[in-house]
């Protein structure tokens, strides 16, 4: 009820963001139904113009661009989402543990994170992707399968990005750990698990949820960037970053095809950022 009330006061930018996110989710979930052709099927000649059958034409192998765009929603967003969740599980857990235990565990974890963060993320990602390229097997999760290259990508980026989650989770938890109720729980003799689950987590959800949005955007853009460089998601998986790369040359002829997947990426990040901005604004009580 309270949530609905706050929803009603959301600014237009936040509404715009929420609607866009909803549309993306629907497209990603029902890609099979919505897409006119399959993800990898060669349906016609190369580089066909936009027409009634191929609304956005065909690509360099003669695949339907619109269909690939639709499947791309599932792949690109799915990979970024999986990465962000993994990064939060890893970084969040470690950050909360470091804040609660303090002492040498906190020192060691924090120094490791400092070192990893001393290397720019994109550069480190390139380095690790070179090293681990082609090492991960394709896996099948039953409901979906992940190509080896995508798996490597997810693991590498989740690992690198978890450092930032660690810092935030630790900082947020540090503010709560100093509260007397946590001290009371420690003095009662409660274990680490209880303190994290019952005392820290319920009180740190708001900033962590907002951060999830921001990290998602960041990861999403990083993966798109890597795919654009040809070092992220690998063919034949339909992916927006790779689609931009594959059609990049067309731009010189005034064809806006490469701008469409790029715009799809931009639109989603804008949408998420608008929603997060509203959430942060609200939780900070107008103080900016």
């Amino acid at each position: 009820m309270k949530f609905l009330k706050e929803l009603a006061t959301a600014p237009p930018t936040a509404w715009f963001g929420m609607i866009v996110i909803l549309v993306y989710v629907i497209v990603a979930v029902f890609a099979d139904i919505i897409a006119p052709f399959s993800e990898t099927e060669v349906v016609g000649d190369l580089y066909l113009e936009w027409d009634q059958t191929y609304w956005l034409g065909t690509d360099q192998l003669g695949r339907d661009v619109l269909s690939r765009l639709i499947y791309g929603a599932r792949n690109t967003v799915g990979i970024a989402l999986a990465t962000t969740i993994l990064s939060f599980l890893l970084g969040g857990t470690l950050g909360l543990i470091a804040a609660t235990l303090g002492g040498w565990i906190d020192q060691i974890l924090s120094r490791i994170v400092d070192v990893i963060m001393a290397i720019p993320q994109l550069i480190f990602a390139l380095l690790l992707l070179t090293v681990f390229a082609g090492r991960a097997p394709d896996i099948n999760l039953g409901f979906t399968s992940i190509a080896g290259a995508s798996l490597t990508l997810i693991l590498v980026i989740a690992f690198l990005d978890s450092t930032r989650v660690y810092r935030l989770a630790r900082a947020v938890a540090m503010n709560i750990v100093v509260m007397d109720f946590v001290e009371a729980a420690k003095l009662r003799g409660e274990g680490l698990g209880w303190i994290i689950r019952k005392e820290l987590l319920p009180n740190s959800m708001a900033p962590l949820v907002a951060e999830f949005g921001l990290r998602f955007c960041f990861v999403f853009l990083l993966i798109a960037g890597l795919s654009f460089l040809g070092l992220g998601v690998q063919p034949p998986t339909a992916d927006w970053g790779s689609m931009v790369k594959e059609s990049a040359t067309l731009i010189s002829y005034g064809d806006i095809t490469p701008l469409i997947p790029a715009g799809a990426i931009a639109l989603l990040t804008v949408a998420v950022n608008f929603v997060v901005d509203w959430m942060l604004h609200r939780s900070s009580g107008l103080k900016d």
Partner: protein
Amino acid sequence: MTDTNANGQSGDILLQMRGIKIDGMADDVWNPIIKGIDLNLHRGEVLGLIGESGAGKSTLGLAAMGYARDGCRITEGSILFDGIELSTASDEAKRKLRGSRIAYVAQSAAASFNPAHKLIDQYSETPIHHDVLDQETARKDAVELYEKLRLPNPSEIGFRYPHQVSGGQLQRAMTAMAMSCRPDLIVFDEPTTALDVTTQIEVLDAIRNIVRQFNTAAIYITHDLAVVAQMADRIMVLRYGELVEEAVTEDMLSDPKEDYTKSLWAVRSFQKPQKPLAGPEETSVIRIENVTAGYTSGDMVLHNVAFDIHRKRTVAVVGESGSGKSTTARCITGLLAPKEGRILSNGEELPADYRQRSKDQLRQCQMIYQMADTALNPRQRIRDIIGRPLEFYLGLTGAKKRERVRELLSQIELEPDEYIDRFPGELSGGQKQRISIARALAAEPEFIICDEVTSALDQIVAEGILKLLFRLQEELNLSYMFITHDLATVRSIADEVVVMLQGRVVEQGPKDQMFTPPHHEYTDLLLSSVPEMDPEWLTKLLEDREKNKPGIELAGN
């Protein structure tokens, strides 16, 4: 500048506020903070504004300058300052008044001085800006005022940066700064709240002198009754943005009319009978044995601290901030392992680190905190807060646990049905503190540390808590360690008193002895520095001190 001299006020009245209403923004809606208050101030008069936090004192004080903080707005009312209507005056007109004719002294001097400039430059800024003095005269003037305010080294102190000067000195330097244009009115916003009691005396004295000397009118905002009794000619009591009562100080103290005022004024009536010292053969519940302790970096905070707490006794530990009271508590609970010495419970040594202590050892020693707000997890219901120790220590579950929680709630005088499912946010301050007590009791301990448990509460609520604690002590054979700086609390509940200074115990003994002189000179200084309700208290105290010239000079003043 439109309403200048609209109705030709007599020169006697300096400030006249009528029907002031101020709104504040919270959760995207405007809520009233001040709900229609009238205020009159004569030239040279000191008006005390008193009330709990949230009463709207500061907001009203700032409104006297025609100023509203971001997120606040003055919605109604007139503010007539010496014939100028501030509510309709232009920003430029108000700016010209501020600093030159109405000045402000803030609560935190450390934050209110700009760290980038020297004190004397911040002093001279106002008179130069308002074209009252040139730089050279302003500087000379500053030194003169620093001297009047008894700042050490008046000719040099101004050339220091704010962070190079102690809190008490900074507060006096800010008073000097407010005086720089010899304004007609100064608004003092809790100027001594952040200071220790012994430092507070000197700042109060300095402020009072200078205001009298220049016949400046002042609005003195505070929550401390004893302080306002020393400073103000007249007192206004505020609550929830409304005026409760207004009277001349003497009348207000001797004959308050409203119930709320009476409750504020009520000298603590509750006094528990003092128990005799425990016999030498009796094992103490908690013994602190020559404890020396410090944090990882830096010097020791505690030096050779030793005292005992016996069954059914209350030991009050008093001292100023930094004296080591709370550190002592941390050593007892095992949060800080002593470098030397040990903690014994019933003659048995406790492991220095709480993580090494057994569940039963942990259960025996419970803690009640000063801020009930941070002591209770805001995301847990009362049933879980009190139920957890029952489950954890005593293994109670299901119906048995529920029954026991209800029992505990009745014991702390809260209706179980009404409160058991609430969140802490849905309780008042006093109720929250009661829940903290219930949580401690749930563990069935024999010893409880009470860390300033009443200092965040109103007088009357605090008294209820003290009574409750005393009753529980009698019923359950509890021992208390009471950390406090409030002598009224010590008088009402302690059996024995321990006085601490800079990490050492300076004196200890039974309460009646501690309240009869003579003492260690620090004990004297500390005990005498706590303001009392008598309006003549400060004057008398200063006269006394002048006569006896105490040999102890506290660092930092």
